[in-house]
């Protein structure tokens, strides 16, 4: 009985990578839905993290996110992924309006020595749930995206990573003088993910 409980709370590198990349998939869907990048009717509701989550039914977006997840889990398992950024840009001008920044800290001992850590699934899910709630409620303070927008995803990797065939090197697509809001973090004890949204500060007159 005791050994079973212990076995359940053990988390491996592979399991942690799966949790983190799955988190990115849901977070990206949630951002695209909540920020209205794609029309509401192209999303369907599913249950995840104890919350109703929305997943796109658009084949193009779907395959983009699933390809992304496959590559991210590979990098996460190798401990090479430092950061994932979802960028929302104006379709017309290409101006970056929002950056959803997910920083990842990897426990290198796990990657190098193949040891595992202990943390219950339940606890991780609770932490992720808090972030998802924050993403959904972000529309209350983020500026309105009142023009058609497109998105892109940037992956910050270690320098020694070979660029996969389907990827290219990109600039950071930064926002000049942004407003930033830090959201909750979650930690699998192997990967720690910090979430931060930065957005174009277009209320400059208010501060003067």
């Amino acid at each position, binding site marked *: 009985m005791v050994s079973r409980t212990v076995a359940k709370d053990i988390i491996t590198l592979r399991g942690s990578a799966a949790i983190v990349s799955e988190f990115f998939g849901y977070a990206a869907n949630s951002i695209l839905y909540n920020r209205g990048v794609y*029309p509401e009717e192209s999303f369907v509701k599913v249950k995840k993290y104890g919350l109703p989550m929305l997943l796109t039914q658009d084949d193009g977006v779907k395959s983009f996110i699933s390809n992304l997840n496959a590559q991210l889990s590979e990098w996460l398992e190798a401990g090479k992924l430092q950061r994932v950024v979802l960028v929302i840009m104006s379709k017309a001008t290409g101006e970056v309006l929002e950056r959803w920044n997910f920083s990842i800290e990897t426990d290198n001992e796990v990657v190098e020595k193949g040891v595992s850590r202990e943390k219950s699934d339940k606890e991780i899910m609770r932490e992720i749930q808090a972030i998802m709630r924050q993403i959904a409620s972000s529309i209350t303070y983020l500026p309105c995206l009142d023009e058609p927008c497109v998105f892109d995803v940037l992956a910050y990797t270690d320098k020694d990573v070979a660029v996969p065939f389907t990827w290219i090197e990109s600039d950071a697509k930064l926002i000049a003088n942004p407003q930033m809001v830090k959201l909750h973090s979650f930690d699998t004890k192997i990967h720690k993910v910090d979430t931060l949204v930065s957005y174009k500060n277009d209320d400059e007159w208010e501060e003067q």
Partner: protein
Amino acid sequence: MDAGSLNSSSNLKGQSRFPLQEQFLHRRNSKENLDRFIPNRSAMDFDYAHFMLTEGMEGKENPAVISPSREAYRKQLAEALNMNRTRILAFKDKPPTPVELFPQEHSSSVNPVKSAKPRRHIPQTSERTLDAPDLVDDFYLNLLDWGSSNVLAIALGNTVYLWDASNGSTSELVTIDDEIGPVTCVNWGPDGRHIAIGLNNSEVQLWDSATNRQLRTLRGGHRSRVGSLAWNNHILTTGGMDGQITNNDVRIRSHIIETYRGHHQEVCGLKWSGSGQQLASGGNDNLIHIWDRSVVSSNSATQWLHRLEDHTSAVKALAWCPFQSNLLASGGGGGDRTIKFWNTHTGACLNSIDTGSQVCGLLWNKNERELLSSHGFTQNQLTLWKYPSMVKMAELTGHTSRVLFMSQSPDGCTVATAAGDETLRFWNVFGVPEASKPAPKTNPEPFSQVNRIR
């Protein structure tokens, strides 16, 4: 290399480089050296002590001792030199742009061309006004017709005038004798060359407008004046004050091929559907009849397909919808004032709108889903309606008496109206002629193929 070494070296030799700063430091140092607890520090080797506290630590690799501020500085440096430690990667193939999925209201700023179309400017005044002296002010007649060759025919008293819209020239086609006049209706054949003229004495004359020559006179179809005419290829349908409707084959000697009996008062509205299959007739008996050609030709007993009894006044205004077959619009006279829509396949009344005044004429826009009605007392206006919502889009005023007659240019854009005020006015109510060119080409002769088969 880092903050520690910079401090120690500046203490020793940096005097000339930062004069003010160095003087200050020296003064402070000398003061500090002399306090009451340690009055003499000359024996102390500050440089060595500083080295042991700073540089010395680095060699020992003791991260626990590194101060938080130095840690932060190093992090910031790493961040600034990010490119050396990180690759930023993105997919070559970008996610699909959501524009195709966007509903129209989202992308209203993107496609101004599309939104500009509904906001077509409708001129509120007539583009041109011509005198129409001696125009007979009679609700039951049909004295104006715009032919497919862009020539407008108007009957003024005993005379039929032709006004060529392409160059604005006017010519007289014919003046008939007083005994048989006045002219009670004019109607162009589908070719835009032959014109039928109905007379007060029950005769119908056929004229060739190209040669100004009378081709034949049709007699015996009616016992009184012929107020309405409608062509269906070589069939000329005539409606008389006697309530009769006659189909005349203008090619053969005994021209009367069918007679429709259903009205018991004057037939004032007569229109063939675009397919040439159904004829709508309206009368002073408040009735509309729908006649079907196939039913009639197979059976000599002339039975209507539908008798529509909803109007409460004479029905002259009839218009077949150009974009929806079996849809007929009809307008009632002074006691009725409604526009009604009918499914002529089932005979069902689809809608009825009270316009508030006598409906003299109805025309569909060939290019948009709009209907134009012409009215009598009190406004003598033209009203443009959105179909099927029947929202009023425009009210055009100018005529000072009831707008009796209405006809549309071949391109479908301009409407000519003639009223009891003896004027003929032209209105650019249906837009500008541009993309409309192919539409009227196919519309006037949808049944030309039928003709060849027979």
